[in-house]
């Protein structure tokens, strides 16, 4: 039988020709069949099945386009075919569908076709197969980015802080805050190198400040001294820490002769604590309280064990005039009286930890150790952050991270056990640099997982594509201006380091209200008295403006300057006279305040009945703010202070005027009583 079939098919050349021709045709016909059974066909069929039973099936079907779909943006080099399978990207009515690829895209500020998909999500946009599109293949290195890093996509264009990208913003802040940018150059597209926002203290006079033993203990483990310490652990051996401490003491300029006497030995701890509290030191400095919690700000260093660190003479000098030791410090000069100084210094000096230096036994340093210490300081890049005598700040000490987010995996050496993807590499590198070999110079940080994620997100935004994007797409970030107020007031502002907390004309911190238009906002009389004795405006806040013991003349100078210079261009402050408001208007304003706009839910006018603690107290607002400012503020708060949480109620002119009339009254009544 077989033989007969064989003879029929291949009996002679002609039969063999015919048979093989048929076989060849069949084989060739498999190719279009293979095309027909590609994955995306299946998904599109599945989608049609899914929507058939839904209420809006007709609409969905009409909007569905079959066949290959693509977003093609030649100028950006985008060819994304993701929507071939992810067919329901724009169908908000499918919000409840849990199975991919049919879930709609969450709402974003861009249209989905503006930049394509792979720009943010990575993966191989051109691919039409599940494996090729999402995974790392021989022909495509970048797999789809895990959703938790997706904010990095925004960061490619946006150098500014967006409200929708908290993780990216945090990561960028940390890059600048924790010294990353001091060793690594990170350039944002269209902008210069990212600058450190928390410069490390200079070490040029370190021997005046602290002991060699403390330096040793600190070098060995900064977090043992202060758990919030910014400095990472360099994992130095005892010998290396010994030599570095020897060198640092050796390079330090000789301490000046004791300028002020040591504080009274038996300072009253209670009184010292109250000076600490009144001065609102905790706004910037943290301490660990009895419950073991870190309480306080993170602008200055943690003070839990400050007594074990600083020398008494230095502390007195620092408290009375910080800029003498460090001209770039953010710490204001408080103008303490001698008694306050003694109490505060005594209070701080008592914050010791006997365990910290107990085990540190250092022999006097030899010349060899000092020399070796200098070599180590150069090797470890200490001078990238700290100013050190005799060691220049190294240029590009660590690899440039400007385009780390698109780094080719082939150029990366992975440590054992690290998955071969870029985010995993960055995670591992930040979490445990030494897993990449003992020679790694990068120090050990102690960030919680969420902060590492934030850092990785910020680094992933540093792509080659971001650098190459057309300038029209870039959104520049806010850069600190180098605004310097002039004259006597300028000197005062510098002396009290107002910029540490207040921002003016694009320079300064964000802890306290911005003062750029303060002169349009407040009344001069109030300002003078506030500067002399700041009272609280917001009872709910712990951080308040401290008292700087300014003299009358200084307060007048500052107030004059502020009233004259810090004026808004949007209105003229002198137009409205509070005295002209009639009683009808005041009463109408009162009704608006309590009924129509329900301002009492956030603000207090009558301290007996009102319970609003979110906004500032308004009991004395009539003495504090100018009437014109209140009108403008009520009509459009965001135009005067972008980002304020005061809601914009689209008030009519009449309502705003009436409310202002009522609020301006919140002065006389008090004053009258």
């Amino acid at each position: 039988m077989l033989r007969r079939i064989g003879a029929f098919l291949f009996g002679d050349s002609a039969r063999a020709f015919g048979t093989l021709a048929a076989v060849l045709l069949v084989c060739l016909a498999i190719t279009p069949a293979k095309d027909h059974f590609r994955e995306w066909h299946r998904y599109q069929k599945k989608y049609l099945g899914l929507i058939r039973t839904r209420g809006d099936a007709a609409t969905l079907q009409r909007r569905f386009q079959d066949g290959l779909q693509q977003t093609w943006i030649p100028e950006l080099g985008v060819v994304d075919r993701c929507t071939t399978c992810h067919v329901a990207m724009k169908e908000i009515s499918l919000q409840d569908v849990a199975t991919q690829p049919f879930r709609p895209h969450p709402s974003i500020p861009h249209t989905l076709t503006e930049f394509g998909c792979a720009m943010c999500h990575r993966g191989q946009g051109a691919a039409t197969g599940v494996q090729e599109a999402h995974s790392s293949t021989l022909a495509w290195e970048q797999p789809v980015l895990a959703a938790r890093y997706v904010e990095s996509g925004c960061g490619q264009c946006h150098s500014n802080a967006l409200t929708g990208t908290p993780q990216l913003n945090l990561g960028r802040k940390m890059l600048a805050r924790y010294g990353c940018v001091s060793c690594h150059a990170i350039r944002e597209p269209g902008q210069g190198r990212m600058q450190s926002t928390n410069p490390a203290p200079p070490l040029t006079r370190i021997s005046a400040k602290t002991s060699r033993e403390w330096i040793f203990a600190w070098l060995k483990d900064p977090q043992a001294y202060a758990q919030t310490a910014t400095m990472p652990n360099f994992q130095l051996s005892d010998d290396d820490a010994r030599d570095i401490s020897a060198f640092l003491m050796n390079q330090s300029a000789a301490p000046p002769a004791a300028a002020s006497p040591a504080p009274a030995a038996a300072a009253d701890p209670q009184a010292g604590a109250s000076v600490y509290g009144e001065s609102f030191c905790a706004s910037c400095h943290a301490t660990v309280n009895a419950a073991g919690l870190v309480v306080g700000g993170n602008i200055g260093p943690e003070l839990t064990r400050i007594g074990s660190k600083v020398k008494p003479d230095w502390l007195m000098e620092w408290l009375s005039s910080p800029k003498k030791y460090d001209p770039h410090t953010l710490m204001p000069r408080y103008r303490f009286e001698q008694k306050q100084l003694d109490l505060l210094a005594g209070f701080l000096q008592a914050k010791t930890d006997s365990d910290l230096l107990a085990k540190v036994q250092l022999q006097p340093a030899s010349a060899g150790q000092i020399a070796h210490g200098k070599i180590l300081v150069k090797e470890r890049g200490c001078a990238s952050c700290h100013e050190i005598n005799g060691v220049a700040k190294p240029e590009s000490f660590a690899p440039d991270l400007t385009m780390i987010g698109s780094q080719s995996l082939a150029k990366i050496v992975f440590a054992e056990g690290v998955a071969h993807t870029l985010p995993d590499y960055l995670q591992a590198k930040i979490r445990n640099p030494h897993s990449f070999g003992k020679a790694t110079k990068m120090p050990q940080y102690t960030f919680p997982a969420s902060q590492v994620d934030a850092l990785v997100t910020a680094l992933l935004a540093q792509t080659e594509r971001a650098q190459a994007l057309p300038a029209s797409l870039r959104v520049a970030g806010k850069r600190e201006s180098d605004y310097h107020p002039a004259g006597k007031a300028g000197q005062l502002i510098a002396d009290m380091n107002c910029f540490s907390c207040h921002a003016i004309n694009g320079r300064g911190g964000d802890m306290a209200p911005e003062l750029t238009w303060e002169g349009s906002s407040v009344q001069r009389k109030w300002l003078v008295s506030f500067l002399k004795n700041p009272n609280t405006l917001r009872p709910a806040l712990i951080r308040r403006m401290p008292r700087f013991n300014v003299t009358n003349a200084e307060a007048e100078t500052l107030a004059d300057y502020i009233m004259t210079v810090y004026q808004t261009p949007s209105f003229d402050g002198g137009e409205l006279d509070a005295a002209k408001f009639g009683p009808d208007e005041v009463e109408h304003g009162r009704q608006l305040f309590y009924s129509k706009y329900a301002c009492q839910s956030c603000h207090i006018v009558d301290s007996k009945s009102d319970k609003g603690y979110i906004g500032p107290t308004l009991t004395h607002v009539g003495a504090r703010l100018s009437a014109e400012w209140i009108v403008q503020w009520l009509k459009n708060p965001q135009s005067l202070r972008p980002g304020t949480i005061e809601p914009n109620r689209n008030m009519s002119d009449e309502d705003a005027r009436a409310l202002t009339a009522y609020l301006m009254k919140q002065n006389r009544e008090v004053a009258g009583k």
Partner: protein
Amino acid sequence: MTDEKKFVTGLDSDSRRTPLRLAFVTRRTSPQVKVTDDPVVMTYPEGILRAVVAVQSLAIALVVISLIWDAPLEELADPMHTPNPAKAPWYFLGLQELLHYFPPVVAGVIIPGLVVAALIVIPYFNINIEAEGIWLKNRQRRLRIFGAVVVIFSAVMLLFQVYAVLMPTLTIAAFMLAAARSAPDSPVRFRRWLVSKPVAYWVMTWFLVQASVLTIIGTFFRGPGWSWIWPWRS
């Protein structure tokens, strides 16, 4: 030698077709005798069909292979990033393997140049026309020459530590020695076969084995930095 005529005699047993005759064949002429009893067929359709059937079979095989295995495609070319190892197409891997042992001028120029030249001149050298077993004439003298060539060549290879060339050479040499020690009328068929092979056959076989071994090593047994790897161990 010059005035002495060389005679080559042949005998055709088919007396009906070929009358008994004596033929003079001098040097540098074709020694072939046109045979007339070779049956012929029409090129069309028989020859053409066979060729077409052969090509069809090949096409089917290639189509099936193409349906099953995808051609390799790697990442976009990046001049800044050299893969390790960077390999040439497979048919040049033998040369690349040689490049590992010898200076570029030798491995990249002299050897391939010699190979191409040797291939071109093959039909013009009598040594290639000779169809007699290598050891059937001047055996002692040829053995001496052969021994000297093999020893010198092996010594050079040893000097450069080119075991990938040395081993196949010695293997072929062993077979040649086996052929030299075999009689044309040996009862063992393999020995009779060995002894019948002319020198050209041996040289070409040596070249073929050599090229194959080097290509296979370069393709499968070379890893990062052109270091030796075992393909089944990665």
